[in-house]
């Protein structure tokens, strides 16, 4: 498989009022291959959206991608590009779909205008040709009456149609990678399924790689080839989708599954993960999930590196060490000494 995107040790930082910097994305690494879908899953505030923005250097100032991070698109070192070279990559090699189709379209231009803008940012073609291509894109994303929608303003379109227009815009310059940041969060459940289906079809017909960012494990199940679970700025577990669902290993991933209701199987009480995600400036040292982790033990005061669990399956947890499986060490240690337990509310 051709590797199209290689992200290594990505760190995004923001300055604090007292002159230090905190890192909402702290050492994220993953690769994306041609034609595959990687799902980046995590709660709000875990850094998944910032990760996606950093791929195109769209982190809003005063935030920045820290030196030492690597974002490699094929042979291109994205973090070293000059402004014009960077502009040529945006949209052309990585297309982005944003979370909220209500605000991500400019209210004063028609759908056709905005798709054509994406085309003409990268190809020297006439307005008429761009319009022609925009029409084909609208057909491709399955909008009814595409010719009519071409001249519609965003406020004249439904949420689902707007998201389809957003997808058409993201596809305008035929990128090899599509980043979809919570593409269905703002939509009805039935429309969600349609949008995901459109994305999947496009991936197959165009051979694109898709980075699907979501907080919804249900979306991941049918669509992704691999899943990376993010917590507190780091990828804590990564595996092929079937493997992850069959064998969730990181206590955080296990907690996520335990808190999702199941349709089949015996009826049981949902188990929430206690506590909330602490804000980036207050992340604990050592393992970041430690204060909320039911299986934390002494070694968790040290920060774990990604450790192998099985083939293609890694997690940032000391439990992955062979000797960690002994029952004595597995004994849960209530958030120990130095790190007082955080109360549930925020």
């Amino acid at each position, binding site marked *: 498989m051709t590797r199209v995107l290689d992200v290594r040790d990505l760190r995004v930082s923001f300055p604090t009022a007292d002159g230090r910097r905190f890192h909402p994305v702290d050492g994220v690494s993953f690769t994306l291959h041609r034609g595959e879908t990687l799902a980046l899953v995590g709660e709000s505030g875990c850094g998944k959206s910032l990760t996606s923005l950093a791929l195109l250097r769209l982190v809003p100032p005063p935030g920045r991608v820290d030196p030492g991070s690597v974002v490699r698109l094929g042979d291109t070192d994205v973090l070293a590009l000059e402004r014009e070279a960077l*502009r040529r990559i945006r*949209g052309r090699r990585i297309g*982005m779909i*944003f979370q909220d189709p209500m605000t991500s*379209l400019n*209210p*004063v231009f028609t759908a056709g205008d905005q798709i054509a*803008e994406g085309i003409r*940012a990268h190809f020297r073609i006439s307005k008429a040709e761009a319009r022609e291509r925009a029409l084909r894109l609208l057909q491709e994303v399955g909008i009814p009456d595409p010719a009519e929608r071409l001249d519609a303003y965003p406020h004249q379109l439904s949420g689902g149609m707007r998201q389809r227009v957003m997808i058409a815009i993201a596809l*305008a310059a035929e990128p090899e990678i599509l980043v979809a940041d919570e593409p269905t969060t703002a939509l009805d459940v039935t429309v969600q399924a349609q949008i995901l289906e459109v994305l999947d079809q496009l991936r197959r017909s165009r051979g694109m790689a898709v980075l699907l960012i979501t907080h919804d494990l249900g979306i991941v199940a049918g669509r992704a080839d691999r899943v990376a679970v993010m917590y507190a700025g780091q990828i804590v577990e990564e595996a092929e989708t079937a493997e992850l669902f069959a064998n969730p290993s990181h206590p955080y991933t296990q907690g996520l599954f335990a808190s999702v209701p199941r349709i089949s199987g015996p009826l049981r009480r949902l188990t929430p993960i206690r506590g909330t995600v602490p804000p980036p400036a207050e992340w604990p040292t050592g393992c970041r999930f430690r204060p909320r982790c039911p299986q934390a033990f002494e070694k968790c005061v040290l920060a774990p590196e990604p450790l192998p669990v099985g083939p293609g399956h890694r997690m940032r947890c000391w439990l992955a060490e062979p000797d960690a499986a002994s029952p004595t060490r597995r004994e849960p240690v209530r958030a120990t000494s130095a790190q007082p337990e955080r109360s549930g509310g925020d």
Partner: protein
Amino acid sequence: MTAGGGALRGVWRASSGRAGLAFLLFLVLLALAGPLFLPDPFRQFGLLELADARPSAEHPFGTDQLSRDVLSRVVSGARVSLAVAALAVALSVTLGAGVGLVAGYLGGAVDGVLMRLVDGALAVPRLFLLLLVLAVPERVPLVALIVLIGATGWFATSRLVRAEVLRIREEAYVRAAEALGASRRRIIFRHLLVNTAGPLLVTATLGVGDVILLEAGLSFLGLGVQPPTPSWGGMILDARSVLVTAPWVGIFPGIAITLTVLATNLVGDALRDVLDPRGA
């Protein structure tokens, strides 16, 4: 439906906006078509028998000290006043929008320098600045007057545009455009400028009234539009000496100023109601 057409329709639906718009339309038509049926504003009808003549059927607004038809001169003055106002406002809106866009989009040091300059400029009263410049040369050509008024009127506009740009650049669609590979120029002119068009249009309309008043004031002081070119302010200046014996010479241009400024303000307010329903 275009946004501009919708805004105009909205103004027309409000009764005050309709009154203002109708008056301005009437004034523009009159200014353009006046020469077809009104006497030459420079023609003297007879210094001895027709100086300071009362309004009559032949001269509905009367005549001035030089026996010229006041109605003709008011209409002709409308052409000058409206042209000066429109061009000066066009200039100041362009400058203000340009500086505001650059400052707001680029931010940082550029923003800091530009806005401190604007702060400084705003601290100097505009009229004093104009008096100072206009009092030096013997005669001020009309073009120079327009440029001076335009060049001293954009400071507040630039701050308005900057504030709008700061708001709009945080909108998701601007980030989406950046993610698409849109160039900086494109983002500035397409996404930012077009989305500030509403407030800009309102300021421009209200600015026209201000400039008409300013130009009339300067002309009244003899520093604006130079005689013999008729202007409302200049006519009131000429009428000073006969204000008691022949008040019509000064009253009609005065009424013209008042009504025109009132009309532009009505249109501007109606426009604001249409384009920015949140504003008080």
